[in-house]
């Protein structure tokens, strides 16, 4: 009996990476799982939009002005389909418009957050590594950017660049890289004082390889958390700018523009034109924030290990 149990307790090494551990811990929260599933559904619907919706809301030929401002549940004049969420002022099916709007919102939000993350992280690492006047210059620039009200900065940049999806993304990148840069710099400065960096230097590994291969992987957890929350921020900001009429063009409405378009009908009981895009925006932001909050708990070294 004893021999058997000894034989079976041979230690087995399961190479569980920090990421796998993180995934296991992430699963511990039901709300986070709900948020993640919701987010995946939203992303999937947005990605597959052309195959899901009845109508391409950007194709003016498919729109019928006679169908304008129909309440939710009304049948199409030609009888082909039902406007489940009603129609807007141009006779667009709101459900189709919302799904296409989500597409733009997600694309702008995720795209700008990722580009800002890459640029900001690289500048932050450069700042930490170079030190001296490079560090001073970059960090004062970051302070400058973070000290201005975001909306004011965005309005100024967009007034200068003009409308368009690309310009909105560019604006968001300009406004957001500073957050990543500051975090990456702080984290890299902390990590560069750790002994494993000395050990790597003692192995004759070059400075570039130490920064990218050793320090950057240790800086990633807080950057991922910021990334998740910045995506939500970018989406709200884009909606705000579009609502103010400075974001995406009127022919390709994002959620913010749909809300703005319906705003004038709010008091004439045609609530749905603003309400449903607003609801879609709300659900998306909540889902991203649920995931982001859980990531923050999982990746926060002060709460773990």
């Amino acid at each position: 009996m004893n021999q058997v149990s000894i034989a079976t307790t041979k230690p087995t090494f399961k190479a569980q990476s920090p990421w796998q551990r993180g995934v296991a811990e992430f699963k511990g929260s039901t709300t986070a799982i709900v948020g993640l599933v919701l987010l995946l559904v939203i992303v999937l619907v947005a990605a597959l939009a052309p195959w899901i919706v009845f109508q391409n809301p950007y194709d003016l030929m498919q729109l019928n002005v006679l169908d304008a401002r129909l309440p939710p549940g009304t049948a199409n004049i030609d009888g082909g389909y039902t406007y489940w969420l009603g129609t807007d002022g141009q006779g667009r099916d709101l459900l189709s418009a919302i799904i296409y709007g989500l597409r733009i919102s997600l694309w702008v939000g995720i795209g700008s957050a990722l580009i800002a993350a890459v640029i900001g992280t690289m500048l932050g690492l450069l700042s930490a590594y170079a030190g001296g006047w490079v560090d001073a210059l970059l960090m004062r620039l970051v302070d400058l950017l973070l000290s201005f009200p975001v909306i004011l900065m965005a309005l100024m940049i967009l007034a200068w660049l003009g409308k368009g999806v690309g310009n909105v993304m560019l604006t968001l990148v300009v406004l957001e890289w500073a957050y990543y840069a500051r975090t990456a710099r702080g984290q890299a400065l902390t990590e560069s004082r750790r002994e494993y960096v000395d050990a790597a230097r003692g192995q004759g590994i070059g400075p570039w390889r130490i920064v990218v291969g050793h320090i950057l992987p240790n800086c990633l957890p807080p950057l991922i958390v910021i990334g998740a929350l910045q995506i939500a921020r970018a989406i709200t900001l884009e909606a705000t700018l579009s609502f103010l009429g400075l974001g995406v063009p009127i022919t390709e409405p994002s959620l913010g523009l749909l809300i703005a378009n319906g705003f004038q009908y709010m008091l004439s009981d045609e609530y749905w034109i603003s309400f449903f895009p607003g609801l879609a925006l709300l659900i998306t932001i909540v889902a991203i924030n649920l995931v982001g909050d859980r990531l923050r708990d999982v990746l926060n070294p002060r709460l773990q290990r």
Partner: protein
Amino acid sequence: MSAPLSSFEQPSAAQPTLDVRGLSTSFYTRAGVLPAVRDVSLSIQPGRILGLVGESGSGKSVTGFSILGLVDEPGRISGGQVLFQGRDLTLLSPQELRNLQGNRIAMIFQDPMMTLNPVLRIDTQMIEAVRAHQPLSRAEARAHASRTLALLGIASPDERLRAYPHQLSGGMRQRVAIAIALLHSPDLIIADEPTTALDVTIQAQILSEVQKLVRQQGTSLIWITHDLSVVAGLADDIAVMYAGRIVEQGTVAAVLDTPQHPYTQGLIDSLPSRNKRGQRLRQIPGMAPDLLSMPAGCAFAARCSRASEACAQEPPSQQLAPGRWVRCFHPGAADEQ
């Protein structure tokens, strides 16, 4: 395993692997200049083991870091030469120095928890260390890493290679760190208290393995420690440091059996031993001086029973026999006090 010999390496019995001459390293802090290492000279022949002994803050670690060129701001080597196989390391460019670091001179650090990158697997770190100096494919580098781990008595090295540092015990981690130092069969290894964080049985195992490997490969080893008993069993030579200076140097037998410097005498007296059973251990009175406000003359004078007026001057390092040095105006065995 044998590394290619570069043109400048001409190992001969006469040339020491490392010859440090008058090395001084200071830290230029806001509170003032902190002379951590002052006028340190030591040399080590191929295949010899030197124990660098001293209490915390005596400058022994900074000496090790200075040799390898790893002193960070605000610290700076302020004088002296570090001749490694005849080349002065303090004059090399960063690139030339990197070619030697980890390759011909390796370092083992104190805390195995900290010296391995926590988010990278052992194989990632070892393969990178191999490929920093040898143009091998990843598979070849991995095989080499696995062989080196096996040298240190690590069972199933391929499995350990796939592990993350936190999955290994402290002793295992330190073996990995030592294996990384041995990857390129360096000519000199500087070990900074690598067994201090380990329990005594693991320490004994690692000491005997390191000793065996160093002897086999003809590597010179500097073992930095505060533990005289470790040095007694491991090293050939001893250098005792106090307040940034080497106060006594010689073979292990000479220094431990007939210590000449009162500080060395004090260190030995403060250790329990068979011959002193039942007696109170003698301790050295007072505290190590503050490096920022160092007294003029002998730094040990304030704690020394032999101190005289002469000790207000800095005692020169005097040679008692070949390789046997002491820095004291009143050298001698304890009985002569």
